[in-house]
């Protein structure tokens, strides 16, 4: 299906769906998992309702890229948004422990930490930016008083670059009065410095507005929102011009811009970011392996190996079957520093090389992920199973009660799986473990460093397990390859993939009224030949995004 026809299908689906839906796809399982946490059940699936008028706090990356635009101009291409002429700590890098994705920070409250960092950053940026305009701006302060017509274009440029919208005439005159007031108390240079700090701290900069008016979000709100969601940057030149010309008034025109921005999906920072977060393979960086015992373990290099493969998959499969490839690819990237972790015997260069390894089956069988979901010196079946349950099946597992820290000690000749199974038979533990452990056994084919293993602590490894809640009948699997094949084809996993996209790109959990939209997006994904980009596009042409209620223009 072409991108164009996919878009039209998406628009049609999102505006005309009716029927019975449930929180999760129907399962023929005779023993449904108690851990599945179905979303609220709706009686009818109406067209997506307009979303609430709201404000969205900038992310640290948006902040940084906007400052790059302030200094460098909007004509910079995304990949050129490099370091700015000033060093500062971008605010809003702190993530709440309860946030599923970094993008949820957009709806987080602004804390005192955020204010502190914003305040410090504003001072540094103002100082540096002032240097670039000082001569011209100071000429606007003749002895007779502030020359407003001289300062207005300078001010307009700053506002447009920071706020991604032009200042309304009354706003511009208000800011000029602000400068005049400052100049009555402060030296001209200090007044200008104060002005830039104000512009960097006003909520018009620190928050994107999604308020709109009778016709939905304004063109500039659409441009800023789409650009931020897809590129973590302010609108580029083309998107800015589209907003200026009023060309973003229809869902189709927004869709066209979304497609343009996604034309090279491998360059899309948010798609990379999404995959980094949902697959969490960089967790390897936080798992410490004793360097004296495991000197060849290189977590940073392992993560980059996986990133190399993901970049290829994005480029080749973003329009068809990306999830399927992520779960099944035998493509690996190996370099001399990591070949031992991969169990590769062949000579490889320090720079690395792509290889095919039939024993691996998708990103979750890469050493980066396996080590990220391991302990210091042994595998972690439970965490791995929990990952599958929560990230791929969108189920949930209760957290351990405070005060409960089970430790499973291994004894010689007994595999970790065998010890875990003993523990999990405890009636107090069974309810949770049965929803995690059977999903984690498949990864016992590799040790805690990601290397192939046939024996664990003197006992043969056993990679068999059982999958449930797939949206089809429960199935037994013999090994990771079989498990991944089942998962890659499972309707529940595909719907979960769409739900994860929704969560990441919309920046929040689906509300009860948005469950309908998730169902429609899942259908779109299936009907479009598993087109991930079509789902992302649909998220931004939906009435739930483009239209708003509850705000005042």
């Amino acid at each position, binding site marked *: 299906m072409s991108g164009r026809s996919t878009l039209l299908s998406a628009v049609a689906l999102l505006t005309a769906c009716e029927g019975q839906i449930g929180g999760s796809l129907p399962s023929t399982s005779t023993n449904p998992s108690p851990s599945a946490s179905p979303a609220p059940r709706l009686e009818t699936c109406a067209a997506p309702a307009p979303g609430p*008028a709201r404000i969205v706090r900038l992310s640290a990356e948006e902040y940084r890229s906007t400052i790059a635009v302030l200094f460098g101009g909007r004509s910079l291409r995304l990949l050129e948004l490099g370091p700015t002429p000033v*060093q500062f700590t971008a605010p809003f890098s702190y993530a709440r422990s309860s946030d599923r994705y970094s993008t949820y920070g957009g709806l987080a409250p*602004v804390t005192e930490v955020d204010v502190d960092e914003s305040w410090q950053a504003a001072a540094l940026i103002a100082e540096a930016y002032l240097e670039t305009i000082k001569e011209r701006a100071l000429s606007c302060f003749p002895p007779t008083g502030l020359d407003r017509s001289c300062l207005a274009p300078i001010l307009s440029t700053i506002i447009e670059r920071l706020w991604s919208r032009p200042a309304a005439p009354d706003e511009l005159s208000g800011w000029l009065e602000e400068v005049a007031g400052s100049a009555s108390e402060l030296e001209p240079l200090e007044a200008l410095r104060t002005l830039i*700090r104000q512009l960097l701290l006003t*909520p018009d900069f620190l928050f994107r507005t999604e308020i709109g008016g009778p016709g939905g979000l304004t063109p500039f709100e659409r441009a800023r929102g789409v650009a931020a969601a897809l590129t973590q940057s302010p609108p580029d030149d083309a998107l800015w011009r589209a907003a200026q010309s009023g060309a973003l008034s229809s869902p189709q025109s927004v869709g066209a811009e979304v497609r343009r921005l996604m034309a090279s999906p491998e360059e899309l920072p948010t798609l990379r970011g999404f995959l980094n977060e949902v697959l969490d393979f960089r967790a390897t960086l936080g798992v410490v392996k004793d360097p004296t015992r495991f000197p060849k373990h290189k977590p940073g290099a392992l993560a980059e190996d996986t990133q190399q493969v993901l970049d290829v998959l994005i480029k080749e499969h973003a329009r068809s079957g990306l999830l399927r490839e992520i779960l099944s690819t035998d493509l690996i990237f190996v370099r001399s520093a990591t070949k031992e972790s991969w169990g590769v015997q062949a000579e490889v260069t320090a720079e690395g090389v792509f290889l095919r390894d039939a024993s691996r089956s998708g990103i979750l069988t890469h050493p980066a992920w396996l080590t990220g979901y391991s302990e210091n010196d042994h595998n972690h079946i439970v965490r791995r199973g929990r990952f599958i349950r929560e990230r791929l099946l969108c189920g949930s597992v209760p957290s351990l009660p405070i*005060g409960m*820290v089970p430790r499973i000690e291994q004894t010689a000749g007994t595999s970790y799986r065998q010890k875990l199974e003993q523990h999990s038979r405890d009636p107090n533990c069974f309810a949770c473990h049965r929803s995690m452990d059977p999903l984690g056994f498949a990864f016992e084919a590799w040790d805690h460093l990601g290397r192939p293993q046939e024996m664990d602590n003197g006992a043969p490894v056993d990679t068999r397990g059982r999958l449930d809640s797939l949206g089809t009948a429960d199935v037994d699997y013999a090994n990771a390859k079989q498990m991944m094949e089942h998962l890659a084809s499972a309707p529940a996993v595909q719907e979960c993939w769409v739900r994860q996209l929704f969560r990441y790109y919309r920046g929040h959990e689906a509300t009860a009224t948005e469950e309908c939209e998730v169902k429609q997006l899942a259908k779109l994904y299936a009907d479009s030949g598993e087109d991930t980009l079509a789902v992302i596009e649909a998220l931004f042409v939906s009435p739930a995004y483009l239209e708003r209620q509850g705000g005042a223009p």
Partner: protein
Amino acid sequence: MNHNYRSSRRRFLASLGLGAGAAFLGPIATSLHQRAYGAEPTRRKNIVFIAMSAGLPDLQLGWPSRTDETHWELHEALAPLAPWKERMLVVRNLSLGLGAMQHSGGYGLMAGLGAGDGETPLGNAPQGQTIDQLIAEQISRDTPVRSLLFGIDQSEAKVMHQTIFASGRDQPLPHPVRASKLYESLFPGAAENQAHAQADRRVMARIHRDVERLSRRLAAEERGRLGTYLESLEAFDRRRSAAQCLAPNAVSEARGAVAELPVMLDMASIALRCGLTHVVGCSVGCGNSHFHFPHLVGPHLGTRFEAQGFVGEHGHDGEEVYSDARTISFRWLSQEVAAFLRQLEPAGGESLLRDTVVVLYSDGGHAHHNLEEGNWRFILIGDAGGALQTDGRFLSYRGDVPWEPLRPDTRSVNSLWCTLAQAVGAPIDAFGIGGARTNGPLPELLS
């Protein structure tokens, strides 16, 4: 190994006492000054937390050079603190289960998280209020600065950081890691800050107006979210501007832990002497990640680290190197703490240390990963007005297993926090999430 290194710091108080600074005291500060120096009937107690990153090994603690509770020798790493040995209390083998594999306890240590699940992102996000803030709510509630928090960081570009202090769950408290920023926030009334203060007021006023304008376009829930920006801004403003006290000369622009920590400790002593606060928290490179350990440039001279150009954390470089690094690092910190203690009881002046307890410890317990969780150790200096039995004691507990059931003789970090809170006038029976693993204050430490 060369332990004769001395920093070339410039001490504020050596040349600028209260008398010299009195010209800068505003009415509030004058009143505070009077209260702090006897006009107030009851003497307030002070508590100072000084946490060093990445472990305080037994060797550097002095263990096992101990024959009984009162006969023990200070290791060379703590030798600069010898003048206070008889007012010192060392405790080791307190338990606290963090369930995390990071280099430090992060927020978990001071939030008294009794046990973790191995997955809790300790250090990344606070799970609850930290003990310094709980105490500050009680004993510093009417001071201009609720608690004076500061620290140092490896990155010389950073000006603020949040690592170990929190007012509640998901509410980390930022602290300056630049001496100049601490100075600016603590002494906004200084002459050189006046123009900045005027500009700051204009910035604040403008943001208030813009928030109000934007709020009018939003429904109640979103107005509330925007309101949090204003609330945070006001809290930030209060913290910056309320402290009108002494105005020492502006700090130098010298950067780095070795240059800046002494200056910040000097400012902390001024804050305590002026009654600006009763709670001080100092984070010497603490935090959750691998990247915040201070690089000490200066103390490395004449040591095995000279070629490297600094002393860092070195937890992965083998026991011998790690031990040497800890000795040098704690020797340096001990020197700075000793200078701070001298500021609290200047020769011929009134001793503020008499009403103070200084808590010196590591956010990583005994080692840079502290995986055993049963051997946290602390050095208390000062008896908080006689509330604590210090007297040069060295107590070594049996070492509890944090995940075993609580027993009557369990000795946990949370119980120590209760003890300290009680000693300084904020009595509590339990601390930590759900009061986890607390037997209440430790009676053997209290007078």
